[in-house]
């Protein structure tokens, strides 16, 4: 352990003297944080969707005597996706060439079918294959759902007008036919008056039957309004605002920290072990001064120390941003010790992986380049959702990145984090042991 401590002190001293490296260590996390923020913003940005209006929809439609705000609905969709109005041929071409992710088509006769209130008009959606098409489909389904809800409201208001006419009487029109009716209430009063004036008992009995029917019908139709509204919206969605911006979310913080550590720690681990060979000191160290396992452990410890320092700096910067923005819930400062434990585990795992790459590459520059080339694809593989494919998911399990993200998310924001933390800690410790053992097996080649 004494040898490890001495070499660690030496490496930290050398790192401190490498100005470019210190600048990179300070600037890189901030750069990653900014880039992740930008990516998060654009990830949440509106996908481009072609909008083909073959029916030349007007700004408003009159449906059952009610005005329906077509432009309002389109504006609402435009907030979720970027609708680009264009002719059908161009839309097809852009969809084929990937310049739009989907195409929404309003077919001819759409407005007429809506006005008719008899046949459901169709809205056509064309999507391209790929990961984003599901997202577009969900957004379009949401659009159609909202459209249906608005139309339902319009239809119901129109039907309630007819119900009102049936109850109270008055002038109206249906399918172009105008009429003037007295309504059930007036009909009841007329029947009562007629019954009183009729001397024939048999006729009075028949009028009484009609009065009973009119009374029951009045009561039943009186209930129709609220019943129709309830059927239209069996479950109502009550919206409230309590969340924080995605840029300051737990996910972005966790990914930013894990990404920073992945790149810096793996490159540092690879470079640190390979630089011992570049300095030609491995032979001298391993001739009785330091055991090979201690040399590997020291490099892992070095990377871990740097990971803890960088990770804490990054999370403090995020915390300041969260507090300054007044994000709901604030930064969970009381979870910092748990987060720091994650930094130790993740730093050690990345460090051991980097040392392994350094042992394979042997020479300092080659090791750094190899580490950079290996880290990026592995991080990208870790970002592929399991639903897309099982193979990348399991490949990513052998790299500490996804475990690091899960650990950080859980450590910072899970209400009951222990189960998830325990699993990820075991993964990270196992990967550290695996990469460490492989590095130990190969590190002797650095002495040659």
């Amino acid at each position, binding site marked *: 352990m004494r040898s490890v401590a*001495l070499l660690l002190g030496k490496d930290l001293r*050398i790192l401190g003297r490498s100005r470019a490296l210190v600048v990179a260590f300070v600037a890189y996390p901030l750069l990653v944080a900014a880039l992740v923020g930008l990516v998060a913003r654009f990830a949440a940005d509106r996908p481009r969707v072609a909008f083909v209006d073959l029916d030349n929809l007007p700004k408003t439609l009159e449906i059952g005597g009610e005005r329906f705000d077509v432009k309002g609905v389109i504006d609402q969709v435009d907030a979720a996706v970027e609708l680009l109005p264009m002719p059908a041929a161009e839309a097809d071409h852009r969809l084929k060439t990937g310049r739009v992710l989907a195409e929404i088509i309003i077919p001819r006769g759409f407005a007429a079918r809506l006005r008719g209130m008899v046949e459901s008009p169709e809205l056509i959606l064309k999507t391209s294959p790929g990961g984003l098409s599901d997202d577009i489909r969900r957004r379009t389904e949401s659009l159609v759902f909202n459209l249906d809800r608005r139309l339902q409201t319009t239809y119901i208001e129109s039907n309630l007008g007819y119900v009102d006419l049936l109850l109270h009487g008055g002038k109206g029109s249906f399918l172009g036919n105008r009429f003037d009716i007295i309504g059930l209430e007036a009909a009841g009063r007329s029947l009562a008056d007629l019954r009183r004036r009729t001397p024939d008992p048999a006729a009075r009995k028949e009028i009484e039957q009609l009065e009973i029917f009119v009374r029951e019908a009045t009561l039943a139709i009186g209930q129709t309004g609220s019943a129709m509204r309830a059927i239209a919206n069996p479950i109502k969605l009550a919206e409230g605002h309590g969340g924080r911006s995605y840029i300051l979310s737990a996910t972005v913080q966790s990914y930013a920290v894990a990404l920073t550590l992945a790149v810096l720690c793996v490159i540092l681990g690879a470079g640190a072990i390979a630089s011992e060979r570049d300095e*030609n000191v491995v032979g001298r160290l391993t001739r009785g001064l*330091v055991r090979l396992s201690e040399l590997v452990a020291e490099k892992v410890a070095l990377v871990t120390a740097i990971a803890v320092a960088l990770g804490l700096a990054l999370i403090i910067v995020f915390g300041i941003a969260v507090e300054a923005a007044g994000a709901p819930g604030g930064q969970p400062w009381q979870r910092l010790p748990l987060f720091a434990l994650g930094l130790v585990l993740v730093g050690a795992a990345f460090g051991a992986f980097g040392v392994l790459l350094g042992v394979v590459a042997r020479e300092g520059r080659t090791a750094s380049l190899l580490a950079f080339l290996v880290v990026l694809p592995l991080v990208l593989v870790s970002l592929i959702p399991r639903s897309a494919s099982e193979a990348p998911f399991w490949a990513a399990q052998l790299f500490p990145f996804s475990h690091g993200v899960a650990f950080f998310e859980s450590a910072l924001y899970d209400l009951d984090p222990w189960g998830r933390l325990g699993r990820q800690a075991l993964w990270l410790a196992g990967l550290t042991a695996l990469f460490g053992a492989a590095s130990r097996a190969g590190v002797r080649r650095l002495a040659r």
Partner: protein
Amino acid sequence: MKIGWVPQRPALYGRLSPFENLELFARLEGVAEPKAEVRRLLDLVELPAGKEPAGRLSVGNQQRLNLAIGLLGRPDVLLLDEPTASLDPRQRRRLWAIAGEVRGRGGAVAFATQNLEELERFATRVAVLLAGELVFEGTIVDYRADPSAQVFA
């Protein structure tokens, strides 16, 4: 028996000063009073105790520092691997004078060289390796007398 090793190419940390290099290796060796030992060796090899990184020293000074690291802990045997290969004549003389410290206190210096002049001047026993095979082993007197040993002459 304690053995000191001086590889052909200096084995030291270029970003550390000579003092820091020597102090680190002294501590790794478990030298009782590392700072005093470092000062002694710096005086011996005539290197300054300044902060200039070892990587910026001349080749000769780097080789002397390399030798000083090999002398840490007062080894009984000093192994030198072509120690003067990249040194000028003056630097060579200084290096041999320093290595003589080990012999001076009853130790041994074993060195690999292709320089026959150095062999004649400093060696007492010679082993000749040819293509990985030991083709001669004996005193320098026997070496001079044995024509089969003169493969490099």
